[in-house]
């Protein structure tokens, strides 16, 4: 869908472009401006389209000698060529773009052009030194024009390249500069701080300082204005990824979730749409919605492939291959890995390559294709060793550079301290005023919190009362039901029998059997037959049998009851199972359920799983959800058990644990 909407939007854009050209009443200047705006919106679209649009626009703008516009068009065109794989053409256009921008004195465009030159051609047409030179120029221009985000971008890119060439002294120097820059940016708040913080976070991530990276991603999220939705999407995904590295899956998931709620409905930039789908995929993947995640990654992949962004596709492919493996769709996994390995020839992203090799190996192994499996395992092992050694060498070099840098930094700090002192004096005064305001705000805040707390306590109590009422209501309801059952079915049948006896009509045995069955049913519901005598396990077996007789649910169980519970606990466990099963039959639409009970020295564990549609999502403070769940919670509390509910679209699982 997303791809279709991209194409559709681009079709529309082309149409509009044509309209503007053919509108002779407009000045050429206006026509170009309108067309350029349209082109800019599709910078990240399909390369062919972008190039086509730019070429047409260039033809129109060239005679006017408007170098600023020409430079910007060429910049966009260069991007198109780059993603089309025509690197030479792209390089040429970018250089020209920089030249034109210089002529037009358009500093931002100069910086953009140079940054693009470096990021596109750092490993092909440009030497290490040429890259450094370009970046240095961008950095100086940015600092002069106080465009801090470009300055940060330049420093970040320098760090990346320096790391790649193992030039850690330079990389650390740039980090130091960046930190100073960040200190300044706090004084000069600006719309571009978002990008600045984003770059800082990326640097810290590349240095392995994840906590700082997360802090700066968070700052970036707060600083990015609503209008720059695309940046927000990426920052959320990146922050989530770092949290994943730190093992904080729970918060990572909420970041991925956040990344999917940002873009407006009618958004068309395919790059960001791909990213959003990727974020959605991550969210689904880490919430274990594998099939939905697979679809989302597939969508991201499709959009990226359409726009020829080969460097982005491996991310989706990686997760897709993981899911395929998990689903035991080994053929598919192999297909995905092969594709991924093909793309990696371009991007050469070792970590991805490693996993594709590993996944290929696992898939072939699972399929029993030993030869292929071995071949992939050997490739994986060789690359892994190489990677590991390289990482080790890198870490050593880094440590050395760090030691050297610490000394240098002390000196630099002394110099900067003098400069900072004046600024600090100014800041101190500000701080005193600030503190007064802060104390006031703090007091107001405290009062507010206090009130909120009181409200929360009140709400808690209300909820508790509601539950109690519900419990009482339910007891009443139960009594009413029993009375109703007795009256409606048993009493009614007995009256009929009495009538027949009075009239000396013949009585059939089935009529009486019917009454007997009704009574048995009611009494069984009230108290399971001889629970005391036959014990928990037999009672559970009987319960399952009887449920299977009266419903279409199929139940299987595995009961390892080595360490018995107390009689009191047993009865509650039985009731919990009964409740869980009733919920499954009533609400889940499940066809199968599995009950597992294990009780040994390690403790007691019960799990009831079904393959139904899952529980409806629960809203906070809402207590209209099934009384069954509440009753399960109350019962497990009463026997010091811990109960948890896991629900997905593929079913629900109730887990009860009692520690020994």
């Amino acid at each position, binding site marked *: 869908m997303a791809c279709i909407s991209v194409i559709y939007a681009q079709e529309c854009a082309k149409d509009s472009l044509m309209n503007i050209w053919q509108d002779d009443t407009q000045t050429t200047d206006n026509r170009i401006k309108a067309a350029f705006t349209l082109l800019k919106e599709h910078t990240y679209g399909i390369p062919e389209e972008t190039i086509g649009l730019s070429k047409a626009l260039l033809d129109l703008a060239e005679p006017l000698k408007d170098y600023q516009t020409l430079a910007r068009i060429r910049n966009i065109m260069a991007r198109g060529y780059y993603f089309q794989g025509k690197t030479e053409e792209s390089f040429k256009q970018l250089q020209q773009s920089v030249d034109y921008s210089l002529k037009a004195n358009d500093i931002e465009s100069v910086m953009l052009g140079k940054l693009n030159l470096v990021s596109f051609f750092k490993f092909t047409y440009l030497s290490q030194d040429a890259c450094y030179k370009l970046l240095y120029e961008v950095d100086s221009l940015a600092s002069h024009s106080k465009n801090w985000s470009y300055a940060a971008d330049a420093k970040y890119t320098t760090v990346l390249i320096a790391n790649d060439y193992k030039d850690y002294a330079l990389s650390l120097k740039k980090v130091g500069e960046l930190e100073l820059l960040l200190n300044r940016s706090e004084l000069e708040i600006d719309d571009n701080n978002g990008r600045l913080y984003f770059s800082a976070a990326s640097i810290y991530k590349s240095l392995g300082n994840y906590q700082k990276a997360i802090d700066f991603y968070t700052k970036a999220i707060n600083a990015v204005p609503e209008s720059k939705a695309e940046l927000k999407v990426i920052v959320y995904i990146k922050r989530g990824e770092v949290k994943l590295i730190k093992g904080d899956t729970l918060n990572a998931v909420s970041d991925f979730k956040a990344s999917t709620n940002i873009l407006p409905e009618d958004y068309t930039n395919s790059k960001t749409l791909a990213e959003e789908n990727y974020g959605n995929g991550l969210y689904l993947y880490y919430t274990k919605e594998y099939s939905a995640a697979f679809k989302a990654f597939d969508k991201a992949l499709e959009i990226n492939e359409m726009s020829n962004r080969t460097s982005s596709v491996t991310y989706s492919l990686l997760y897709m291959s993981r899911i395929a493996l998990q689903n035991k769709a080994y053929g598919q996994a192999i297909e995905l890995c092969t594709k991924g390995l093909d793309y990696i020839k371009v991007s050469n992203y070792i970590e991805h390559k490693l996993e594709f090799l590993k996944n290929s190996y696992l898939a072939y192994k699972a399929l029993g294709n030993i030869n292929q499996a071995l071949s992939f395992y050997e490739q994986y092992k060789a690359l892994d060793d190489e990677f590991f050694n390289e990482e080790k060498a890198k870490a050593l070099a880094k440590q050395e550079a760090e030691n050297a840098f610490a000394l240098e930094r002390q000196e630099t700090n002394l110099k900067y301290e003098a400069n900072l002192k004046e600024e600090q004096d100014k800041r101190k005064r500000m701080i005193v005023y600030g503190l007064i305001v802060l104390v006031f705000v703090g007091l107001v805040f405290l009062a507010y919190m206090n009130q909120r707390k009181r409200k929360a306590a009140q709400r808690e109590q209300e909820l508790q009362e509601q539950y109690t009422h519900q419990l009482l209501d339910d007891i009443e309801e139960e009594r009413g039901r029993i009375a109703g059952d007795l009256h409606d079915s048993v009493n009614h049948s007995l009256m009929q029998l009495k009538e027949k006896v009075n009239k000396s009509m013949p009585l059939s045995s089935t009529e009486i059997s019917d009454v007997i069955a009704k009574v048995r049913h009611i009494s069984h519901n009230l108290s399971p037959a001889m629970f005391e005598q036959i014990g928990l396990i037999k009672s559970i077996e009987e319960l399952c049998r009887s449920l299977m007789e009266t419903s279409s649910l*199929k139940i299987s169980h595995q009961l390892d009851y080595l360490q018995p519970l107390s009689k009191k606990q047993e009865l509650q466990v039985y009731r919990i199972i009964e409740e869980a099963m009733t919920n499954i039959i009533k609400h889940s639409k499940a066809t199968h359920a*599995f009950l597992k009970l294990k009780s040994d020295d390690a403790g007691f564990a019960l799990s009831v799983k079904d393959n139904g549609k899952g529980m409806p999502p629960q809203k906070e403070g809402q207590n209209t959800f099934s009384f069954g769940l509440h009753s399960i919670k109350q019962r497990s509390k009463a026997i010091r058990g811990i109960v948890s509910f896991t629900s997905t679209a593929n079913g629900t699982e109730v887990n009860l644990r009692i520690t020994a």
Partner: protein
Amino acid sequence: MKPTIIIADDHAITAKGMESTLIELGFSVLGNHQNGINALNDILLQKPDYVLLDVRMPGMSGLDIAEVIKQNSITCKVIIYTMFTELTFYERAKSLGVSGYLLKEFALEDLEKCIKSIENTGVWHHPMLEQKLKASKNVFSPELYAKLTTRERYVLEGIADSKSTKAIAEELFVSQRTVESHRRSIIQKLQLPKKKNALLMWALENKGFFGLMDD
């Protein structure tokens, strides 16, 4: 010689009903007890040809009495009669080798049939319980399922999705013969009857369980 019998049932009315029916059938009723312990003592003392035992009784349950009878190798035919249709009781009764198993609801009608059958073949159990027992044996067993290898589970899922042997073989990059041998192994491990389509029927019935089993 009239056959002798002792009745144990704490419900006086049903016990009376049974007693008169038994007398009609030509039995000599030696005792009619409402307490399990009294009944057992009487049985040990008089050694009747038959005993008719309710399950739930004060003092001692009918099944416990049957167990003592079995342990002491007393040659008397045990008939259990109860209102419980739960298999738990029936299974225990079967393991104790009782001759008759009546459901109270139908006891008066079934009693004659039951006695005749015991005289001829030695045994009569209410057919509903036998049916129930058979049905419960057909239930999916996680223990047997756990014995399947990953490969076999994959094949099983394919069968449950109504895929042909050929299709499964292609998916796994193996020959059809290999898949056939997996099928045989599955049938053996799951202890399925050697009937046509038994595996397919089983797979269709139980495929909902596959996803619920632990990895």
